[in-house]
C-alpha cells in the first residue's frame, strides 16, 4: 500500500533534481534540513531515526543531496524523509516534510475493531509486512 504522508505524497515520487529544487527552496527560507528514516511508517510513529545531525548552515542543496545519497546507501529499503525546521520564534516547528525514498515492497495496514463498554467501538491499525 502506498504510504501518503507529508507534502507531495499524492504525486509521483520526486526525482533527485526535484528533491534538490525543494531543498533549495528550504534553504532559501533559512530553515534547517533534517534527514530521517524508518522501517515503520505508521501514522502515529512520529519519531523516525535521525540520519546525522540536522543541517543548519548550508548554502547549497548539494550538501543535503550528499547526505541523502549516503542514507540511501545505508537504508535503501526504508522510508526516508526530509524535514525542514523553522527556528523563528513563534514558529519553531517543522514547516515541510516529504518522503524521498520508499522500500521496494511497501507494507500495508490491517484494521482491528474491538467492542467495548456495551456497543462502543475501538479501532486500531496495525502494520502488516507483505
Amino acid at each position, binding site marked *: 500500500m502506498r504510504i501518503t504522508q507529508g507534502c507531495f505524497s499524492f504525486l509521483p515520487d520526486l526525482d533527485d533534481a526535484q528533491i534538490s529544487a525543494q531543498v533549495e527552496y528550504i534553504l532559501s527560507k533559512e530553515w534547517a534540513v533534517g534527514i530521517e528514516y524508518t522501517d515503520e511508517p505508521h501514522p502515529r510513529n512520529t519519531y523516525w531515526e535521525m540520519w*546525522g545531525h540536522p*543541517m543548519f*548552515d*548550508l*548554502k*547549497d*542543496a*548539494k*550538501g*543535503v543531496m*550528499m*547526505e541523502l545519497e549516503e542514507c540511501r546507501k545505508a537504508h535503501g529499503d526504508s522510508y526516508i524523509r526530509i524535514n525542514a525546521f523553522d527556528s523563528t520564534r513563534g514558529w519553531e516547528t517543522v514547516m515541510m516534510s516529504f518522503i524521498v525514498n520508499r522500500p521496494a515492497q511497501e507494507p500495508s495496514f490491517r484494521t482491528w475493531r474491538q467492542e467495548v463498554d456495551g456497543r462502543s467501538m475501538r479501532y486500531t491499525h496495525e502494520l502488516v509486512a507483505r
Partner: protein
Amino acid sequence: MDGDVSERVPASVDLKEQYESSGVREVLDELDRELIGLAPVKQRIRETAALLLVDRARREMGLAHETPTLHMSFTGNPGTGKTTVALKMAGLLHRLGYVRKGHLVSVTRDDLVGQYIGHTAPKTKEVLKKAMGGVLFIDEAYYLYKPDNERDYGQEAIEILLQVMENNRDDLVVIMAGYADRMDRFFAANPGFRSRIAHHIEFPDYTDEELGRISETMLEVQGYRFDEAGRAAMEEYIRLRRAQPHFANARSIRNALDRARLRQANRLFEGDGPVDAATLSTISEADIRPSRVFSGGLDIDGSRKRDEP
C-alpha cells in the same frame, strides 16, 4: 523537464559583451581599486578570468564539455592579501557560473581534523557540505600533513578532500593557501593535490611604498589621517619593521595603526582643553614614534635578551 527542447547552439559569441554582462569586469575593477600593489596576482587573475570566459563560450558552442579544474593554490607570506583575493575569486567564479552560490568558507586544520579516531571524517564532511556551491579556502593547508606522525588524522582529511576535489568539481572549488616553501613541500609529499590544482598564484611581499599607501587607506576607512610628520614616521616605521621578526605585511601595518590609535586617544585624553574634529582624526608623529620598533624592535620570544651578556 525541458529535455525535448532542442538546445540552440549560438553561431558566435561576443567575448567583450560577455565580459561586461557577466559582471566579471566589475569584479576585476573592484580588485584593481581595492587592492594596492599585487600586480602579478592581478595579472594572473585576469588571465584566469579570460580562460574561464573563453571556456564558457566553448561550452556554449558545444566545443568542450568537461568542467575545467579550478582548484587553486595561493602562496605567499602572511598579510599579503590571500584571503581577500580568495573572496574576490569566489565572486568571480560565481559570476562566470562555475560555482552556484559563490560564498567563501575559510577553514584551517582545526576545522577539518578531529581529536580522536572516527572524528575527522564527519568533521571534514560537515565543512565540505557547508562549502558546497562555493569556495573552500584552506589556510595554511600544509598543517594537514604531518610527516613525522604517520598516525596523524590529517591524512584522513586529505583523502576525503582529494576525493571531493575530484568527484565534485562542479560543486565546489578548493583554494589552498600558505607560505610558498612549505606549500611546495606539502605538494611534493602529496602528489594527488599537485595534479588536481590547476592554478598556482604567488603573492609577492608589498614594497615599502605600497605599505605606506595601504596604511593611509586603512586610516581613511576608519576616518583618520596622518599629518605630515606622522606620515614620515610611518614610512620609517615600515622600513624598520620589515627587518624585524614576525613581519606580516599588511597585517603588521593594521596592528601598528591600531596601537597608534590607542596612543592618540591617550594623548588627547591627557592633554588639556577642548579638541576639534581635525585633532580627533589626526595621527601624528607622537602616536607612532613611541613604538618599540623604533627602540630596537619587538623581542617577542626573548631571544635577543638571552644573547646579551
